[in-house]
């Protein structure tokens, strides 16, 4: 089990994630809002641009509807994403702007969380996470086949880094 701490005095649950660039060498730490009401994991487009991703690598155009209107973003796969002590390879994120005043670089949504069992202890400021990969979960998680036809799994841990467990 992994334990992630957060500031229980904040209005939002802020956690730290990491996203790697297309070549798997450079990476960005991110502060993300844990959002169990969001289907996708969102990362600011400028973060992905800084790492070397391009909108032309996106898989689909998306639309976000909010109180301020309708804005377009795109879905894109990143080579590696880690959060809450677990990592996902070839992970699909939603590149989309967030309001400037929020002070975060993204949201972590169910596209990542649904592969885990987690317990949010709000008073304690802790999130307890267990991997929960079952056949049912695998069936709900479409993965793009590689050129060799194999399904892509998680990448190995970064040498010298925290040993995040693959999802």
């Amino acid at each position, binding site marked *: 089990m*992994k334990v*992630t*701490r*957060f500031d229980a005095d*904040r*209005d*939002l649950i*802020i*956690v*730290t994630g*990491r996203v790697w660039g297309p070549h798997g*060498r*450079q*990476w*960005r*730490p991110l*502060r993300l*809002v844990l*959002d169990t*009401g*969001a*289907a*996708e994991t*969102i990362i*600011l487009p*400028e*973060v992905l*641009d*800084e*790492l070397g991703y391009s909108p032309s690598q996106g898989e*689909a*155009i*998306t*639309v*976000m*509807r*909010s109180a301020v209107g309708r804005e377009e973003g795109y*879905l894109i796969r990143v080579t590696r994403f880690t959060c*809450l*002590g677990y990592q996902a390879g070839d992970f699909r994120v*939603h590149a*989309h702007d*967030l*309001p*400037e*005043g*929020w*002070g*975060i*670089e993204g*949201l972590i949504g169910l596209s990542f969380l649904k592969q885990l069992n987690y317990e949010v202890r709000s008073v304690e400021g802790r999130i307890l996470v267990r991997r929960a990969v079952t056949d049912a979960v695998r069936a709900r998680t479409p993965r793009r086949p590689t050129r060799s036809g194999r399904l892509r799994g998680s990448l190995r841990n970064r040498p010298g*880094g*925290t040993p*995040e467990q693959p999802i």
Partner: protein
Amino acid sequence: MARANGRGEQLTWDEICERFPDEWVVLVDTSWVNEQDFEFGTARVVAHHKRRKDASPAVKAAFQNHDEVGCFWTGAIHGASPRLSLS
């Protein structure tokens, strides 16, 4: 680009927040205490900006010499989550 004064200086997060209130700071050489949480000993501020988009050139420049570059807001974090629909 707003480059930080004393660019070679390693600062704690509290010191960074005190020197650059309500700004996006671009950090390198971050000594993470616990990589799972937002907790580090010290880091070096290479740039600071009021707007996130303005920090992008500094982040890209920092990646020329570093494999890890952070960009964090030193002020309060708030906001409601948007809801998505795919098309």
